[in-house]
């Protein structure tokens, strides 16, 4: 995987608008990002069900990270022992 392909995938997984543009015309979006021909071909045949589910799952993970409590209960527990 080239760094460019990796960056394209990261954006595809995270950015709803970029994903919509890609789904409307996969090849054009891949080519316009300057990806190699092999990468463009791979993206034309992407696992669409997987893309939908993975993007949703990543979004849920990011949301849960934002909601996570910052502090561990470990310090409190050990202090109270």
């Amino acid at each position, binding site marked *: *995987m*080239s*760094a*460019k*392909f*990796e*960056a*394209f*995938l*990261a*954006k595809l*997984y*995270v*950015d709803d608008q970029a994903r919509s543009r890609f789904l409307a015309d996969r090849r054009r979006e891949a080519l316009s990002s300057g990806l190699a021909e*092999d*990468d463009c071909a*791979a*993206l034309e*045949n*992407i*696992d*669409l*069900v*997987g*893309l*939908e*589910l*993975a993007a*949703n*799952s*990543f*979004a849920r*993970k*990011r949301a849960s*990270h934002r909601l996570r*409590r910052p*502090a*561990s*209960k*470990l*310090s409190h*527990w*050990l202090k109270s022992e």
Partner: protein
Amino acid sequence: MNDRFGIGWRPELAAGILSNLDCIDIIEVIADDYFTAPRSKRRALNTLARQVPVALHGVTLGMASAVPVEARRLERTARLVEEVRPEFWSEHLAFVRGGGVEIGHLAAPPRTAATIAGAARNLDVAGQIVGAPPLVENIATLIDPPGSTMSEADWNVEILAAAQCDLLLDLHNLYANAVNFGFDPHQYIDRMPRERIRAIHLAGGRWIKAKSSGEFRLLDDHLHDVPEAVYNLLEYVGEKTCHPLTVILERDGCYPPTNALLNQLDLARQALRRGRERRRTSPVSEAA
């Protein structure tokens, strides 16, 4: 040394874990939770590590990437390892960012020669900076990684060969990928160099449905109990290996009572024991 059975440390499980250390052999701590933690929290972790063996588990290095892992990320892992002195540390065969975009979770890279080379280089540098190579973990993926030219098993085997790392085999990740993409998880286990399997993760998940097609896939969410199929895979690993393994139960939410988690550890002990017993009594296994 015997097989060891432990639980992933989560703040919500602290009381239950600390009051049951007689039946928990090892605790796995998420390293990333402590990189920027206040000194008091780091001290608490060091206190914990003096009471019970600890393993450190990384989730954000992004080892399977064409882009080198930043030295500053490895250096803070090194500092934590130096402080805590864990039994081992581990990371995932995943990429987690690209082009400045943080995915927020573990993503499967295309399974190609290029990502094998990238992972091997990153793992080599990690071993040098941290002082010990990580165990590497197979990840679950909901998407068949675009651009892949080889199977998951072949890709993982090639990385193990190139990087000289041992394997943290996540059996629920393996199970989920197997049911989602239609391969036999037993054949995957058979492909792994058995002496390199050092640790095991167990977890649960749930089926999710794609709105566009109605198709279901199994999500590894760490919010559900370990399914029987995963215990069966653990039994199979026990049959195929003869060295001690470290088995960690992962749970990230929907926490059941501590007894329910300890019961799952017991089921894991029984499964591994059954596998080991079958190995002892099977002439084929003895010869293998």
